[in-house]
């Protein structure tokens, strides 16, 4: 599979301020790669490095095999970018912005542009200062997609969009990827990331703490089992089992976190006269929040999936 983005030891500091440190990751053609992290974790800094807006302090990146620091224009020809803090010239209308960008990009066939305008109900004929944040964001979406780029770099793309438009945007992403194009989606919205990405990197305080496919992350996330027994029992009988952690024990009620096969737990439970059991699916939110809080915890995915 063709590598579209490759970062190696990518580092950026701003004087004594941390930007990002020694990032290593690859994004392959045709995948939606999620970049998840709390505000200020270094997502936007990474994106600006990939677009040649920042110069790296150390390490480097290749996008379409080119160095953004030397050849950003060639990269940008094939790339659509939607910044997190999308700013328009207040006195100009959306149409004037579209005309400018389409002109520079040499987009003569405006069919796709018109379709996007219609699809997202973009207001084009009012000065951008009179538009709501959501309506300005829609103009940004059209500007990022109008030249049918091979790579889309989207920084918090659904900020300000109402739920209907968010759904429309996610549909657009799916269509984009089905055409074999590549998406780097930066977000702090867990729901959005879970819904659309194939592979995910979690960044915290400028460092990547995990990079893995969503499928693997889901596999490694523990399930929760809540047992009710006929009589109180010692929870120690469960904590001896590999991959099991006792989250709560209150007399006849025992709540377990389980990673791995269910059989061994059921065997032990069956010896203690279980009355009821509730199994809850893997909770990715909890996993992500643990990463956000601590960088990792006892329930984090296997070391093999950690790149840092």
């Amino acid at each position, binding site marked *: 599979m063709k590598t579209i983005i490759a970062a190696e030891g990518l580092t950026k500091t*701003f004087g004594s301020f941390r930007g990002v440190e020694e990032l290593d990751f690859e994004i392959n053609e045709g995948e939606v790669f999620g970049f998840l992290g709390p505000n200020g974790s270094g997502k936007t800094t990474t994106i*600006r490095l990939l*677009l040649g*807006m*920042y*110069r790296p302090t150390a390490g480097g990146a290749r996008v379409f095999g080119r160095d953004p620091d030397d050849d*950003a*224009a*060639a990269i*940008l*020809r094939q*790339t659509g*970018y939607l*910044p997190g*803090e*999308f*700013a*328009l*010239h207040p*006195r*100009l209308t959306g149409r*004037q*912005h579209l005309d*400018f*960008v389409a*002109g*520079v*990009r040499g987009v003569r066939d405006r069919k796709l542009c018109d379709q996007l305008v219609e699809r997202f109900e973009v207001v084009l004929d009012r000065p951008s200062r009179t538009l709501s944040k959501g309506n300005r964001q829609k103009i940004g979406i059209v*500007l990022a997609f109008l030249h049918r780029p091979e790579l889309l770099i989207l920084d918090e793309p659904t900020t300000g969009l109402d739920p209907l438009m968010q759904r429309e945007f996610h549909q657009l992403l799916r269509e984009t990827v089905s055409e074999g194009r590549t998406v780097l989606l930066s977000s702090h919205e867990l729901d959005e990331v879970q819904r659309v990405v194939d592979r995910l990197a979690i960044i915290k305080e400028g460092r990547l703490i995990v990079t893995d496919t969503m499928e693997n992350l889901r596999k490694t996330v523990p399930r929760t089992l809540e047992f009710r027994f006929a009589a109180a029992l010692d929870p120690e009988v469960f904590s001896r089992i590999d991959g099991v952690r006792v989250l709560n024990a209150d007399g006849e009620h025992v709540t377990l976190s389980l990673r791995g096969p269910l059989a061994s737990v059921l065997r032990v439970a069956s010896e203690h006269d279980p009355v009821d059991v509730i199994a809850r699916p893997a909770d990715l939110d909890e996993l992500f929040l643990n990463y956000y809080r601590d960088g990792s915890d006892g329930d984090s995915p296997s070391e093999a999936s950690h790149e840092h």
Partner: protein
Amino acid sequence: MNIDVSLFDLRLRRRMLMGYSLGMALYALVIVYLYPDFKNSTSLDQLVKNGPTAAAFFGINGSLTSPSGWLNANLYANFLPLIMLLITIGYGAGCLAGQDEDGTLSLVVTLPITRRSILVQKVLSLTIQATLLALVTMLCVVVGRHYELSIPISHLVGVSVGVALLGIDFGLLAIVAGTWTGSRGTALGLSASIAVISYLVSSLAPVISWLRPARYLSLFYWSVGNGQVSGGLSLGSAGVLVITALILLFTSIWTFRRLDLH
């Protein structure tokens, strides 16, 4: 060469440019129209003779009532450069550092245009703005031929080119300061301060002997402060202004190249 970025910036500033140009044109026409009433006023010349230092503050020296003295004192030595620098320093500080601070520069720098091309297109826009103001003023002054205000066209063209180059030089200085620091405020402050010092050195040098050698460091001296209205713009003066512009242009390409953008 693609000039979309230049045209886009000119569109952003068209109202302001039209306002300044119209104002400057009206002012120039008033100056021209008033000349017949003052051309025989010996008291004006006496005023300069009695207070040469005070007059020098306004860039005035020599006769006030000759056609070239009148234009120099009322237009080319002070008011026109002032308006010119308001436009060009304002644009120089705003076109990269300012737009970067606003966040609107990301619209341009994420398009497939090299930074060098963006910079050159911004400088083209700066040049068009400076030329427009100098040209509009010059055309209004040409009307002065009907009001006994006659100076050779070549001198008028020379001083107009000088003022335009002065504006371009200071605009470029603001671009360099802006792309060096990433701050519109610093670019404005630094460029305006250097312009004021440059103006004072050129204006006061004729009456303050110890300042005389420093006048060669002033861009005002090479553009409007060395009798350009009466004698035209010498090749040497034009050369200093053009070389300064080229040095600043290449410096700004380097400073913009290393600037982190937002």
